[in-house]
């Protein structure tokens, strides 16, 4: 089974949607990297057995080179990066269940990041420290998302993982709001 993406789930075609590159808001589609999910009571044992460093805190992440290892709950993990491609070929064990992740992933940043988040989500992201890599499962503009807040080039940046079938709507809606915020004032 192939876990790399030729095309983004935003269109599932060769059509590429325009990114937003603005100092106030930057919105990028970074869906193409491979993803791996595992859940179940023995998921930690499985990952540890495979030598994968896992976050000790629930709802937090580790960034290991190009790999984002996110702990979604007590026993569920999402790994985004080259490591995912290796892991999908590994055998699982009893009590550890592979989760096929084909999520769209958007990266949001900019000086107006918090303003944007305040208009799309009920979570107070200001309460979280990007250095601690908080992983928050919430809803944005009506879509369930896994979010990871982190620092990129010293700036607060957030990754939003969403079900691929929602991603066209998700991207379009976020783009509209982002453009509105950029042109506001």
């Amino acid at each position: 089974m192939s876990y790399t993406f030729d095309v983004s789930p935003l269109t599932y075609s060769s059509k590429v949607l325009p990114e937003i590159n603005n100092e106030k808001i930057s919105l990028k589609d970074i869906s193409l990297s491979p993803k791996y999910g595992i859940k179940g009571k023995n998921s930690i044992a499985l990952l540890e057995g495979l030598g994968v460093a896992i976050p000790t805190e629930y709802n937090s992440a580790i960034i290991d080179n190009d790999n984002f290892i996110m702990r979604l709950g007590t026993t569920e993990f999402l790994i985004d990066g080259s490591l995912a491609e290796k892991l999908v070929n590994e055998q699982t064990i009893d009590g550890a269940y592979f989760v096929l992740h084909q999520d769209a992933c958007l990266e949001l940043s900019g000086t107006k990041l918090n303003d944007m988040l305040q208009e799309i989500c009920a979570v107070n992201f200001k309460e979280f420290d990007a250095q601690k890599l908080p992983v928050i499962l919430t809803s944005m503009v009506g879509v369930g998302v896994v979010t990871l807040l982190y620092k990129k080039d010293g700036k607060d940046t957030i990754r939003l993982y969403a079900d691929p079938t929602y991603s066209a709507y998700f991207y379009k809606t976020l783009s509209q709001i982002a453009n509105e915020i950029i042109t506001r004032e």
Partner: protein
Amino acid sequence: MPRISKQNNEWINRNKKLSFEFEGKKYEGLEGDTITSALLANGVKVLARSFKYHRPRSVLTFSNHDANIIMQDDGGSFSMANIRADVVALKAGMKLSAVNTFGDVNHDKASILGNFSKFLPVGFYYKAFHTKALFMQWEKMFRALTGLGKVDLSAPRVRTPKKYDFCDVLVVGGGASGLSAAITAADLGLDVVVVDENQKIGGSINYTNSPRDLIEKAKANSKIRIIENAYASGYYADNWIPIIDKDKMTKMRAKTVIVAQGAFEQPCVFHNNDLPNIMTMGAGLKLLNLYAVQTMKTAVCVVANEYGYEGAVLAMDKGVKIAAIIDMRDEASNSLAAQRLKDAGTKIYAKSCIYEAEINSSKDGVKSVKIANFIANKAGNVKAEIECDGVLMAIGYAPAANLLYQANTKMTFDEEMGQFVPEVLPKAVFACGKVNGKYSYENRVKDGALAALKAAKFLGQNVEVLAEVKETLKPNFAWPIVEHPKGKNFVDMDEDLQLKDFKNAVQEGFDNIELLKRYSTNGMGPSQGKHSNMNGLRVLGKLTGKKPQEVGTTTARPNYHPVFLSHMAGRSFSPERLTPLHSRHEKLGAVFMNAGVWKRPEYYANKALSRKECIEQEAMNIHNNVGIIDVGTLGKIEISGKDAGEFLERIYISKYKDLKVGRGRYGIMCDETGVVIDDGIIARIGEDKFYFTTTTSNAATIYRELSRLNTMWKLDCGIVNLTGAMGAINLAGPKSRELLAQVCDLDLSAKAFPFMGVKITKVCGVEARLIRAGFVGEWGYEIHAPANEMAKIWDELMERGKGMGIAPFGVEAQRLLRLQKGHIIIGQDTDGLTTPYEANLGFALKMDKPFFIGKRSLQIIAKKPQRHILCGIEIIGNEAPKECNLVIENGEIKGRVTSVSYSKKLNKIIGLAYVAPEQNKDGNIIKIKLSNGTMIDAKIVTPTFYDPSHNNQKEAA
């Protein structure tokens, strides 16, 4: 002109003039003016007409509840209705007119209604509509006469942002107590938000002689965020407060809330108390100080507190001659303010009232007031008539406690104070200032600081909470109401309710605050009782011999102040899901339909054919060749673990532990009441692994529920939702096997891959899960694969199938094909009460299982007589009923049609319908009532219309 010289704290910009129109005449206002202040500054006396009697009206409170001064603006790109002129900022180009007038505001023809007030008693609407025969006539008349403003139906849909915000302390009200609370809380390091409905924070500080330092301190404090021109429109659980500004709603989640909203100044009730230029003291002072507008040269002040005297002095200092102070209390004030007034020649009458106001000759204001003694709440003979052109009222307040009530604060009536005050506040909610019964500036400041300390303590700070503040001022007069034989002494100006209306309502038995409110409509107008509830309560108390505490108050529901519908709707997010094949469907000319949140091809358009012909052609192609449909919208769930079979047996009504690996079985899911809620195919893809589908619209709900049950049951299995990660297509038709054989290496013989067989193999080079299913009644395969690879499979099948006549088909063709087979659609052929027995699904019920969800209910239901049963119908004739048309027998409803369609293949109109069990006999004729009332006949048949022996699923011998 009424505009006076520059004031120290005025809110207007004298350098920027704004042109506008009112009632067709051109005027100029200033930036910072409200519509009301601009009109008054231009000498306009009558701004509006009252609701019922169309009496001339102008400013009453100037505090966001001058409910009569509502206007229409035709100056924008669309006509805007119901603008509150007292608070809405003037804009250049406005073309304003008063609402609810017949003719212009100065010559309102409907003002004649005032002469017929005798015939418009309290509860008039109820009484009018009591006679059924006249209902329509009354309705027509009321619709013509009532209603405020005109909705412009061409107005665009305005999408507004909604914002979520958070703070430690939300202070509602930026007056003295609110600012004191905010500064104290901020100094303790708390994140504070102050919201104030006025243009600028400060409350009465802005127009009285109170010190201004709190305003400057609050503005300079970096821990305080100030939101002006916005209001908290309601209180919801867990300190969730919507804050409404002109552009949007902010959903504020506050850790603590300090309500410092102050109090609404109340009017005095006397004959003609509604004439233009009779207003609350606060209204007069705001106009003078903030907008530099002097509407009266000579004023009479009716007062019952010290504020009345102080206000009169402030007005006098701005140039208003105070002809008299009419103090309703037994003793007049001996304050410095009283002395200053006396020194200026103002007559002060204690134990007195305004008996009536006289209208001037131009019928647009006051000529004089008649004064009488006021003893034991009764007016004596008129003792003087005082010439004046305005009246300022300062007889007391009603606490602005709407948020507190909504937060479930227990309020009590403080007899000494003459006001409802909080007795028990809910957790995390605090009150201070006038709403808390503190009126002097010093006390309000102290009370604000105290509320902040309480909030800080609640948030875990180690602070010492100060002693409660004791107020000695008694600002509220117990009975500011003067009877008059001619009436027109208005208690509620929104609805033109006079004192006698209350008496009549109580006499008619509406002697409870809730009943009185609804019968009289007191407090039900646009100001929602802000100037009338307190007096209404006093009147009811007096008439029923009850104390205010016993009478109680009504609770204004959120939003207690009007909110634009556009603010509530916000951006109106409508999430939608697209399958991985969406771009393919677009290229093929799909006409999309909504299926839950999904966009699905309804059919594929062909310009040469009608919609019906397109659907028929798609269906026939499946019978004759091969069709392909995107079924990626199905819920797709995987369950693994040694208890996976056990889990499924508990969820579904059939058995699955005995299902062999590589086989699938139809599944029906019920809820605890035995009602069918979902169906799908359960495929065993490993010893401890099942893959199953749910209906399109139920996928998310079912997964959530299964996760909940899995947590609760603690079985050894894990559930994974693959709905979005996997795509699926159904390849169906007599040539489907031949086509599939070209793209996979599987033995596709019926023996190797039988009906309801399940295989995992590569299709078009993609690892896929195959199920030999027959939903559409022809040989076919469901092909499930990772979403990112679905297009590869679709494209290759479409390419290779060209020679076999492959064509895509949409939801409509699929619905027809499944109907031909009598396959039900959950939610269409079932409803919220349908059991498996009624839906003909008894074959799947395995009651010998120890447990499954709904079993207990189904055991009970099985013993009861069946209400109806789903059966097949063939329509006799050419007229097709609609889904939901009723099955009628002897005038009684026996059932309804759930699915119906013309089948070209069968050349019949076929359908499914619920009928009474006794009607369910093959060949029986039933009657169906069409939407137009015509009755048609239909024949009961076995619901499998097409290929009843399922030969299409068998290999030809």
